[in-house]
């Protein structure tokens, strides 16, 4: 049986300040769209994305994912949910609503 050693990736490969790819920006746009109240969603019209680094993108993706799961009731079923997380979700919801308003104003 062959034993293959897989080397560690050098630490210098990490760069959370890298410009986010179109893929990450698209992911955020979809999550932002899904997090909007249903009445504000327009198929074919994605919210603007204003993150500048991969690190920021990851933080925003986490907020939106948590918010969407919260809205869908995923956390309601049994999973213990800390107050801290609930606060984060409420903050994220507030930010999403205010971004949606800004986007509408720009149009």
């Amino acid at each position, binding site marked *: *049986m062959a034993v293959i050693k*897989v080397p560690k990736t050098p630490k210098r*490969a990490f760069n959370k300040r890298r410009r986010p790819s179109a893929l990450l920006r698209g992911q955020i746009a979809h*999550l932002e769209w899904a997090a909007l109240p249903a009445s504000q969603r327009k198929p074919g019209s994605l919210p603007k994305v204003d993150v500048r680094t991969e690190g920021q993108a990851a933080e925003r993706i986490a907020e939106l994912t948590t918010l969407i799961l919260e809205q869908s009731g995923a956390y309601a079923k049994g999973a213990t949910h800390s107050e801290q997380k609930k606060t984060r979700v409420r903050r994220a919801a507030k930010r999403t609503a205010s971004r949606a308003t800004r986007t509408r104003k720009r149009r």
Partner: protein
Amino acid sequence: MAAGLDALKHIVVLMMENRSFDHMLGALRADDARIEGLSGTEFNLDTTGTPAPVKPQAAFQGQLDPDPDHHFPGVDLQIFDGNMAPDRQPTMGGFVKSYFAERRDVKHSRQIMYYFKPGKLPVITTLAREFALCNGWFSSIPGPTLCNRAFAHYGTSFGHVDMNIFYPNTIYKSIYQRLQAAGKTAKIYYFDTKSSTMEIVNLLQHQPQFFGVFDQFLADCQRGTLPDYSFIEPNYSDHDGDAGEILASDQHPDHDVREGERYIASVYNAIKANPALWESTALLVTYDEHGGTYDHVPPPACLPDGFVAQPASTLTGKPFLFDRLGIRVPAVLVSPWIPKGTVVPGAERSGGRVFEHASIPATVTKLFIGPYDERSPREKAAETFDDLLTLDRMRTDTPEFVLS
């Protein structure tokens, strides 16, 4: 029925990001002529008309920045080299010209022809040599990530060739919904909340029960509670985690390819560490699309999908009938019931087999659900890969990966 197929209870799919077959595995042809890789003589012309040959000089990071174009018009240029005639044939001659448009630097644009030496990618090349390598697995659309990933989840992209995916009125159910309705189990494991899921936001929103994180996948492997079907997403970004810095493992340019190698190995190790799971699981490692990197095999024509993308979406001035596949990507099927060194002939040989991402729901449906009519024409016509588990006796000589 072969004993391996009889034992098969779980399918796990790991879909990485944005690398072509030749870019990752093209060098393997030097050791095994059955592999439809690179001869070393392939080239494209750069924007000055000078040949830019393939070279085994791909780097782990830093070479593909800015991100090579892989949107529909860019891929059209890569495949057809700018020829827009009605009777045009794919030449795979426009990769360097396409990459030149990103930075307008001739020298830099030639790097899109670079490929990896096998020794630099010990995980994917070992799996390719040890298990079943598909010479002819193509992305489903000559376009970007989201529409291609949609084929893995739904067997279609519902007419989309771009990143604007909305599914307000899906006419076909996702493979996860189908399995649930059939009393089977399915899960999509994304890496963590900061990486989340790509493309299937509508499922996240309406069917959150289908989702878990990678740590849960590891625990499910250990406990033997893996669902019938698992789809694994890599980490899509460099970000801070609870225990420090977490590197992206998706291999999307310009993320370090080595971290993706480690991720593939960790999925393989998790399954192999549980003997009962190892015996009853097939792991498919593939890539959503080529990400703009060079491949020499022209994508073949395919059965139209029943949808039409209009010129306003394709941005090529032409409609697209979903009648041609996208660019070839690596695809390796892993199971101890597969003979060592299996190479599945592809489009290069008459009688070869052409797979695409619709082959994933097609295979899962065939295995776990049975006859099922409410599927896209593409999925119904797609090749399935379950028959590659041909051994009557399980192998005991499969490799081990040790992550340092």
